[in-house]
């Protein structure tokens, strides 16, 4: 019986091996046509036009632009909510509110895309005249709302795990709840909070349907949130939903884009795993 169970466990290893092998072998053929240097420095991405360019920078900038917008909403909001729920709110309130907030994280992302495209963009266009129909801003804002509960839930767990004695100590010195939260509890729970931020960041980088639906599909090296952009993930979706010949260079670009995304999220996940193992605060 142990054998059978072990084989099942090894499937998880095979999955990883499969992902790495598929991504790297297909991109290897890609990089025989396009030099890695061009891939990393060319500022144009146009695999389907007659004058082909394969510079990943526009896709990367699109990804980072949307991610930055979403994080600028989700990190402050998520942490404030976490502190409020853990240090201020009555227990009952926390008990009911936390699962309600987590509903936000369980909604399928294509639904958020619909919301960004049909509600948020028209609303923002009233105030921002040059806002394109597909734009990084709406996609980023809505993605930010989606990842608030990821940060608030994990951070709140970290704050809640700080032992009572530290709180009592700070109160005993005459600190207010605010001073206790920011000077004692927050530093004590910092590793857990940083892990939650990194995981949310990785999630935002890999998020696909919101950006595909609402941010557009135009590789665009820009930092202007009002413009249409394409992220790595949106490119993969759009490219693979068209009819692309297998073994063509267009087909391989999907994997070259995929490998970039994978390396990116792999580094983020590894860092968060390392922090979690290394800096776990222990109070006895």
């Amino acid at each position, binding site marked *: 019986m142990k054998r059978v169970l072990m084989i099942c466990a090894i499937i998880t290893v095979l999955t990883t091996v499969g992902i790495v092998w598929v991504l790297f072998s297909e991109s290897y053929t890609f990089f025989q046509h396009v030099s890695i240097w061009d891939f990393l420095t060319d500022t144009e991405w146009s695999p389907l036009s007659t004058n082909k360019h394969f510079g990943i920078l526009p896709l990367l900038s699109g990804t980072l632009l949307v991610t930055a917008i979403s994080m600028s909403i989700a990190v402050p*909001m998520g942490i404030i909510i976490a502190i409020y729920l853990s240090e201020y709110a009555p227990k009952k309130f926390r008990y009911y509110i936390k699962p309600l907030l987590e509903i936000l994280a369980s909604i*399928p992302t294509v639904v958020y895309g619909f919301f960004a495209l*049909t509600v948020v963009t028209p609303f923002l266009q009233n105030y921002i005249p040059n806002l394109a129909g597909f734009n990084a801003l709406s996609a980023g804002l809505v993605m930010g709302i989606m990842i608030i509960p990821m940060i608030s839930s994990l951070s709140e767990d970290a704050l809640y795990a700080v032992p009572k004695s530290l709180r009592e100590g700070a109160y005993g010195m005459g600190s207010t*709840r605010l*001073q206790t939260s920011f000077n004692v509890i927050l530093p004590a729970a910092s590793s857990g909070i940083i892990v939650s931020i990194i995981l949310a960041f990785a999630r935002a980088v890999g998020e696909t349907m919101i950006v595909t639906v609402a941010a557009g599909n135009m590789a665009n090296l820009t930092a202007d949130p009002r413009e249409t952009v394409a992220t790595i993930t949106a490119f993969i979706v759009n490219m693979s939903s068209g009819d692309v010949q297998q073994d063509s260079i267009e087909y391989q670009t999907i994997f070259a884009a995929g490998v970039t995304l994978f390396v990116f999220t792999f580094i983020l996940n590894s860092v968060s795993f390392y922090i979690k193992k290394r800096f776990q605060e222990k109070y006895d």
Partner: protein
Amino acid sequence: MTSADKNRIKDKAFEYVGMACTFFGLFMLVIFLGDILMTGIEKIDMDFLSNFPSSRARKAGIYPAWTGTLWILGLTAIIAIPIGIAAGIYFEEYAKKSKMANFLEINLANLAGVPSIIYGLLGLQIFVRTLNFGTSLLSGACTLALLILPVIIVSTREALKAVPDSIRQASYGMGANTWQTIWHQVLPASAGGIITGIILAISRAIGETAPLIVVGAATFITNVPDSPMSDYTVLPMQIYSWIGMPDKEFAKSAAAGIIVLLLITFVLNGIAVFLRNRWQKKVKW
């Protein structure tokens, strides 16, 4: 005003800021659900559930989409549940504290963080091309099964971890071997937690769109799947294709599709939360 007064005011101010942020999140949820209900509710009737998609928005329905969703969920569950539970048992009961276990652990943590679209690329190359399943339900189900496997494994492990060691020791004391102990004592005691995890994993699979686009779910389909090798579409895929239509009338169809999709997701999540609470209350070691 003394500095103590100032600190008290700041403290109170932060309390209101925190409350405002929390309610902002809930407020967005309400607006969001409200808007979709208002847009889509008029579309929902028997015809919507029993019609095929059409180029005319008034006649377009989700019959192939929801049957496709049921098919793919069934197949995904058949593949992922036994493997996930078995792997979870191995991780928690057999592979404790070895080099191998440590490696498996890191690997699992990383897999859980891989973006879903990468699983789509894996499925495209392995299931669609190499194993030649084509753009069938089977390809989609295998891909989704790999995607939710880490979720099932992690929740199975947590459920097993919650069973106290005294139960195992008592079983060993009666002369049972490891597998007998797991099968007769540990698994029944942790069933609630494992089932909760499985439901949450399945509800995650329902909403996945990106990997299925990559492994070739169809956007327009005129028949209902009748075998694992059929072409298919799923609800989120149908919604995605309606969102892309220029005709505004299709936005209503998309919203109506979203209502059905959210209903399924919320019901499953509700069942999971209910089971978790019941199970936590009932089991007191």
